[in-house]
């Protein structure tokens, strides 16, 4: 009977396509909006993602998330190095610097100052030059997006000329030389990222009493990072987090204090509602149109159980196709635009599962209405003309 159920479904082309379109749209909207949201949220802690070596991050106790910089005294590094279980600890600077562009305008950049000796905290991948070139006088490494985008120069024909190794740049009235181009994970603010040494960054930065943004540390082999974090908190009075915990903190901060979740959830809910209304309504109409035939099958001896399975199969088939098309389109959109633009798009398997659950929910709700109608249908309906 399942073959006949499918033929009944596919045979009604207009409704079949209508249901598929509704579910595809719902699936596309839910997947795409969730993936953009996930992409944006992962950018909030992109700096932590890019710096993989430390397993402990020490910050001022008032810090609520990664961009909430509350500078500490440089001497804190020495105190942390003295805590039992700490293998090494290095200073990191993170702050905004203004780059003066060729046309006289200014561009705010994210400056990362790495430990002068070890250069720990550097970019994950170099495109040109080497990380060690930062040791050259006034050397900086630019991220590729920044070098090709916001910091790029304009040619005589108006075309953008990316900054390259050897070019110069003015940062807070200091001339610096580009010694490398790197790739970084896009930041939340999408500003260009500039890597330099800690001492140079603190020289470029507006003068303050305290300039140390973070202390990146490593637990000794065999030591549990969480335990060392607790020890640092106890000994220094500072906050120490593992990267995962710091990411969580940042993630929940943005979740709680920005309107982003509401915006994206609204779009996702819209997709869900559109799915329920368009597909649910069309599927219900499809069942109503076929009620006489379901009644005929019932009169001819088809059990309620078989009819229920037939309707469920129809719902799951359109759900599967709609889900596949929606997720496929969303992935294609992400691959196409994500590669060419700086649009945040992150589609982990968990999101695919969430979309699948949402589409399943839409299908089952639609099917439930139809099933109720068919279950209550008296087979005597077949004798009504």
């Amino acid at each position: 009977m399942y073959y006949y159920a499918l033929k009944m479904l596919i045979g009604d082309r207009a409704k079949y396509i209508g249901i598929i379109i509704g579910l595809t749209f719902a699936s596309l909207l839910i997947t795409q909006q969730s993936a953009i949201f996930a992409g944006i949220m992962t950018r909030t802690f992109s700096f932590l993602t890019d710096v993989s070596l430390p397993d402990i991050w020490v910050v001022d106790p008032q810090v609520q998330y990664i961009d909430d910089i509350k500078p500490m005294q440089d001497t804190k590094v020495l105190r942390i190095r003295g805590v039992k279980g700490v293998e090494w600890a290095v200073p990191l600077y993170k702050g905004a610097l203004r780059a003066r562009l060729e046309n006289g305008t200014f561009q705010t950049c994210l400056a990362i100052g790495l430990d002068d000796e070890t250069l720990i905290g550097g970019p994950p991948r170099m495109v040109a030059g080497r990380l060690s070139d930062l040791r050259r006088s006034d050397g900086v490494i630019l991220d590729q997006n920044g070098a090709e985008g916001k910091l790029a120069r304009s040619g005589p024909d108006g075309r953008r000329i990316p900054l390259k190794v050897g070019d110069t740049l003015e940062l807070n009235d200091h001339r610096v030389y580009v010694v490398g181009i790197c790739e970084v994970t896009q930041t939340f603010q999408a500003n260009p990222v500039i890597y330099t040494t800690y001492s140079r960054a603190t020289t470029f930065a507006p003068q303050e009493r305290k300039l140390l943004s973070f202390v990146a540390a490593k637990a000794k082999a065999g030591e549990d990072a969480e335990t060392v974090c607790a020890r640092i908190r106890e000994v220094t009075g500072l906050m120490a987090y593992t990267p995962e915990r710091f990411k969580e903190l940042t993630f929940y901060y943005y979740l709680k204090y920005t309107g982003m979740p509401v915006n994206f959830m609204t779009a996702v809910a819209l997709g869900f509602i559109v799915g329920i209304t368009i597909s649910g309504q069309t599927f219900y109409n499809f069942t109503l149109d076929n009620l006489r035939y379901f009644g005929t099958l019932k009169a001819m001896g088809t059990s309620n159980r078989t009819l229920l399975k037939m309707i469920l199969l129809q719902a799951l088939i359109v759900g599967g196709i709609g889900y596949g098309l929606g997720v496929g389109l969303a992935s294609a959109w992400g691959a196409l635009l994500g590669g060419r633009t700086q649009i945040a798009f992150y589609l982990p398997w968990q999101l695919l599962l969430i979309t699948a659950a949402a589409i399943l929910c839409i299908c089952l709700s639609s099917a439930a209405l139809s099933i109720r109608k068919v279950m209550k249908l008296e087979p005597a309906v077949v004798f009504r003309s």
Partner: protein
Amino acid sequence: MNPCMSTPPVSTPFPQIAVRCEGVTKSFGTGAAAVQALRGVDLEVRTGELLMLVGPSGCGKTTLISVIAGVLRRDGGACEVFGQDYLAITEQETTRFRGKRIGFVFQAFNLIPTLTAAENVSAPLVIQGMSRKPAVARAREMLRQVGFDERMQDSSPVDLSGGQQQRVAIARALVHQPNLIVCDEPTSALDSETGRKVMELMRELAVATNRALIVVTHDARIFEFADRIARMEDGRITGIETLKTNAASAAETRSA
């Protein structure tokens, strides 16, 4: 009452009782809005017999065949179909019984438009648990028996004429070898010539193979195909007329 009518039971040429109804009642709605559709119907139908139920609209013909076919539960009285009382079994068992023992022919054909003619005919077999391929093969054979154009077997019902659709519906009613066939206005959507052909076919394929046929009709042109005609009025059988010629020829066919 017509003087040539007699009261049941009269059908000596038909050996086995297929349907026995005694004092069957059925009403719809409740309270002041209640409508008494059947007010104590007594009726017997035997195997090999073609019984026509006639009467004005709203007299309870369709309700009666619905009760007999087990698609509607009676309120009172007794009704057995091949010895089976539907009220004594569960709804599921009734559905199974119906699927196995009863064939249906509907006024509006009720052929599923998205299935081919052969697939429509195969449906009762698939419902019984037969796999699709052998079911469709048997359906094709049945369609040949009802004289359905072989080239049209894979056509959608919407591409068929009324007569062709009714042949498909008859094939569907017969394909699983039911013992009782109930037909609701089988010729009302057909022209006179096609209606006659359909009735000839029903007699040939159903009555001759010792099945019982109950046909609800308004169509006086097909009365001649009946063995007996039961007239209904206001929820009761008011008289039953036996057409001797058909009854005798049916008995002859069986003995041959």
